């Protein structure tokens, strides 16, 4: 791209050929007022607010739609520019209600802000103002359509970013209204971004409606916990109460967006049935007690069971979004007390790969590169419902590149698939292996003889050759392995195929993981095969064994195995049967109060400091935005005190930072040894009973989301998006 030289308000600037005046001005921190322009959306040029004065042109022009040219002299504040901006402002205000005092956008409204600079005190418009009927867009988004200024950002977001046109501008002229086809709830999993995009108070967040004024809010930076991307957020709170969660810009992770799940899950903390005090079960009845009593009982029971069974009959299960500090301390505690049974992978069936792969992350390339892939192969990846914001990156790449999928379910995609294979779930590995066969045929020098031998019985059809060729021939290609594979009985075979296919084709690859902190849990050593940072460990029981075989005692850290595990039935039975179940939880509702014997109230995710490690291996630490309610305490503190009470060494932490620093030090000392996967044993037959037929839904993945009221009222809450029952038979 060439450069041109221009001048804005006397400032000499260099700009890319083809860029618009407004982009160049934004980069130089020269403010031009705007409503319809948004850097992530196409140019609509309909609000006409960004009019600027270009010396060579006879009239003011919109900065958003006027490309720069060599020698252009631009003034954003000349009389001509200001006059144009002011007149547009007047048009926008004539039909806008004067209800700022009761508008949720008040104080953070682009129209309000600009009207201070460009509006008049007294309106010259004396006719009646337009009134527009509000639309019902569902439980997440409140509407006040009379306030709409028709910038169409929300419409373009649907069309361009989501890729599903739900909203539109109907009618014409002054009667244009923004809405959906007949009133219907928005179905997108990232719909609520239109709240941020709306420059006025037409679209606001329903759950936080009328709860606070923008200027009363304090904000704390944090990390969203529900998927492995680790979206950056601001938690907005007032007087210790979370009011809302909004995206914090991070081009590498969430850009300027946030999934609805990450945005509204906070409601579990503010409106869920919280556990406020420690409680112990006495003759089947819950009794609130103080921390001292509860912790003494926990220590007594742990000592009793662990001591009496050489650690074999006790075990710790962790949720997917406990903080790295919590999982590090849990494994340290458990192992210190003489027990090696610890795991967080309650949806895993295949543990044969334990100890293999990288200790650092599931991805060998940055997620943001998904934007630029010429070819992307999805393997059992339901991105829209697992990591919604990664789906929009793949969608972006399909503007020029291609996407392909080997998904054993009828997925919902917001991008075009150029190839789609839909094997039965039990045939996933076979189908996928055929692509490796095809790749090997084209590039025969890479696979080992042993690998070729392994593949020898598998035949590649034309479609497998097309997929393989596409990966080989594309300059930027990648393979994205979905969360579903983590639950597959041949997960390790599939991982080996992925690794091999990446080697043969030159594609990058990575696997998505459950929840927000699978990577952190693994690095912290919350697995039976390795201790912190991939260190050696005495092998203990994995999640499947702990759940299916049953134990005398369980320590549950922010998880509900009776819902989350693929063996949920066995989990419930064995938890009910166990002599002692200790639950570190934030909530009182759910089955946990039936099977637990001690419940310790821990802080929710925005109430504690901690660190999440995302799927790319980014460590993201955060502080508590608000204090946990009543007697609830951050999980890491509870675990630290337990360590003290068990007389374990190395539990003298004064802050969570000391915990993570300790782990970090060990981790940094370990090089990233990737233990290459070995050629797996021959492919066995998988019974159709051994595969996931109904996945955890979008809003079912963890205890917090399950208690987020508004999310539970959306259409996506009631469906299991990758339900295998919908699979077409092939």
């Amino acid at each position, binding site marked *: 791209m060439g450069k041109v030289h221009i001048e804005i308000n006397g400032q000499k600037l260099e700009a890319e050929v083809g860029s618009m005046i407004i982009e160049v001005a934004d980069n130089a921190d020269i403010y031009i007022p705007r409503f319809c322009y948004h850097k992530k959306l196409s140019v609509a*040029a*309909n609000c*006409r607010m960004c009019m600027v004065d270009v010396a060579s042109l006879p009239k003011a022009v919109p900065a958003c739609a006027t490309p720069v040219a060599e020698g252009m002299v631009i003034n954003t504040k000349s009389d001509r520019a200001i006059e144009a901006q002011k007149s547009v402002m007047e*048009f*926008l205000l004539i039909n806008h209600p004067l209800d700022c005092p009761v508008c949720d956008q008040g104080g953070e409204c682009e129209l309000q802000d600009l009207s201070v600079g460009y509006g008049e005190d007294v309106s010259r418009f004396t006719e009646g103002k337009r009134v527009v009927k509000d639309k019902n867009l569902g439980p997440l988004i409140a509407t006040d359509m009379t306030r709409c200024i*028709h910038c169409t950002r929300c419409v373009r977001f649907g069309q361009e970013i989501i890729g599903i046109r739900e909203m539109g*501008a109907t009618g014409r*002229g002054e009667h244009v209204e923004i809405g959906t086809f007949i009133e219907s709830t928005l179905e997108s999993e990232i719909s609520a971004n239109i709240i941020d995009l709306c420059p006025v108070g037409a679209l606001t967040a329903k759950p936080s409606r009328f709860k606070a004024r923008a200027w009363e809010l304090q904000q704390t930076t944090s990390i969203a916990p529900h998927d492995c991307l680790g979206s950056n957020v601001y938690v907005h709170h007032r007087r210790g109460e979370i009011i809302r969660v909004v995206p914090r810009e991070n081009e590498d992770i969430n850009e300027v967006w946030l999934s609805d799940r990450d945005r509204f899950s906070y409601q579990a903390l503010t409106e869920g049935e919280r556990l406020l005090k420690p409680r112990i079960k006495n003759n089947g009845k819950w009794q609130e007690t103080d921390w001292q009593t509860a912790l003494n009982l926990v220590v007594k029971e742990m000592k009793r069971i662990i001591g009496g069974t050489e650690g074999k009959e006790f075990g710790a299960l962790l949720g997917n979004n406990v903080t790295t500090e919590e999982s590090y301390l849990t494994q340290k505690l458990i192992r210190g007390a003489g027990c090696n049974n610890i795991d967080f992978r309650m949806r895993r069936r295949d543990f044969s790969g334990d100890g293999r792969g990288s200790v650092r992350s599931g991805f060998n390339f940055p997620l943001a590169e998904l934007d630029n892939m010429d070819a992307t192969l999805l393997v059992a990846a339901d991105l829209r419902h697992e990591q919604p914001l990664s789906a929009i990156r793949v969608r972006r790449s399909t503007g020029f590149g291609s996407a392909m999928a080997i998904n054993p379910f009828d997925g919902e995609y917001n991008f075009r698939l150029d190839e789609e294979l839909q094997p039965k779930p039990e045939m996933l590995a076979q189908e996928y292996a055929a692509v490796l066969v095809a790749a090997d045929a084209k590039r025969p020098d890479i696979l080992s003889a042993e690998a070729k031998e392994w593949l020898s019985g598998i035949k590649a059809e034309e479609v497998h050759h097309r997929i393989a060729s596409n990966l080989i021939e594309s300059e930027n290609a990648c393979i994205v392995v979905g969360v579903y594979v983590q639950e597959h009985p041949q997960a390790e075979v599939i991982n080996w195929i992925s690794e091999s296919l990446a080697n043969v084709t030159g594609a990058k690859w990575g696997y998505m993981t459950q929840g927000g902190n699978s990577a952190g849990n693994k690095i912290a050593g919350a697995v039976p095969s390795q201790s912190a940072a991939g260190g050696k460990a005495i092998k203990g029981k994995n999640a499947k064994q702990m759940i299916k075989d049953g134990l005398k005692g369980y320590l549950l850290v922010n998880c509900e195995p009776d819902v989350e595990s693929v063996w949920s039935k066995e989990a419930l039975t064995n938890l009910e049967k166990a002599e002692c179940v200790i639950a570190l939880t934030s909530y009182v509702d759910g089955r946990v109060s039936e099977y637990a014997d001690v419940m310790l109230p821990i802080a929710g995710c925005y109430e504690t400091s901690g660190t999440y490690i995302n799927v790319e291996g980014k460590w993201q630490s955060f502080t508590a935005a608000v204090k946990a309610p009543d007697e609830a305490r951050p999980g890491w503190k509870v675990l630290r005190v337990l360590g003290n009470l068990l007389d374990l060494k190395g539990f003298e932490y004064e802050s969570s930072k000391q915990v993570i620093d300790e782990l970090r030090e060990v981790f940094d000392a370990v090089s990233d040894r990737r233990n290459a996967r070995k050629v797996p044993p021959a492919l066995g037959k998988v019974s159709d009973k051994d595969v996931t037929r109904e996945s955890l839904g979008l809003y079912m993945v963890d205890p917090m989301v399950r208690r987020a009221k508004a999310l539970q009222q959306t259409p996506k809450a009631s469906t299991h998006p990758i339900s295998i029952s919908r699979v077409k038979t092939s």
Partner: protein
Amino acid sequence: MANEVCFRTLHLDTPWSLEAYESVGGYSSLKKIIAGKLTHEKVIDELKLSALRGRGGAGFPTGLKWSFMPRNMPGNKYVVCNSDEGEPGTFKDRDILRYNPHQLIEGMIIAGYVMNAEVGYNYMRGEFYEPYDRMESAIAEAKSKGYLGQKILGSDFNFELHNHMGAGAYICGEETALIESIEGKKGQPRFKPPFPANYGLFGRPTNVNNTESYASVPVILEKGGQWFLDLGKPNNGGTKIFSVSGHINNPGNFEVNMGTPFADLLEMAGGALGGTKLKAVIPGGSSSPILPIDIMMGLTMDYDAIGKAGSMLGSGAVMVLDETTCIVELAAITAHFYYEESCGQCSPCREGTGWMSRVINRILKGDGRAEDLDNLERVATNIMGRTICALGDAAAMPVKGFLKHYRHEFEYMIEHKRSLVKG
């Protein structure tokens, strides 16, 4: 001389038939082209020489427009005809479609040849059922004779022509709104650049001309650009169809030479209805500013003369108004029209047209205020030049015209709460 170009079949019995069209020399230009006697460069040269200017209202030189089309660019290119005919006062294209459809078809085929385009769309407004039927029959006739379709007249040149119907939206007369409408969307104009010649229908290079422009082409090529130019005035070549309506005895379409004195045109149209005194003329469709009759009587009917007088020749829709006409009422009708027809995309037009319409209607109801007129003037000024398409200007210009020449009628109504004219 009249009816020499677009209406040259009009004197015949079934002027719309292929037979009638062929009898006046129809399809001879196409035959010349197919026979290799007229290259695409030569066609454009002749058009440039003819000084044919876009008949839809903007008056852009047609030859120049055709030369912008990247004929050597690979891939689809489109020839689109604007038969939307929505500018109030205009009814000429409807008669071309009804009475001489083949000439339009031939013009579009030639355009396809010149631009290397194989598909054309003729966009007609949704109410044009009768013209649609005529066009469909004519297309069938032309196909059966090998003038249209695959391997035209045995050559390697293919051109398919489809009629497309709108469904009621003035804005679709704007060429990019029309393109959007063919694409099955709301008729909302696109921001330019890119212009249709680079990014038009389905994102491909597209040439959009008015019905009368395309229909003029076969005759120009038959008789020569110089001949056409000589019919009119320099820079204003040929004949032009004027749709004359309003307070006159013999309203209708008149194809006359460009530069014909208005007085002659008025006479052809039978003069003032019932012999009343004329007051004013809207010379080029409702978006052209009104001109008092004494100014009009001194003008010739061509782009330059009308432009100099402060209005526009536009689409050639001449609305004649006699002394019984209340200008405030006229302004209310006009403002309401643009209010109804704004597409709603740009803030100034969406909000401003409603504002102007409401103020004028309030004055008409007798609730006007002294400050209203300055405010109207200001609102009109603020809309102009601030919108994506020309509809903003189209809505503002007539209001400014009414205020310029007839402000006293508005003032009278504000003060006396009744019309100066009608009492």
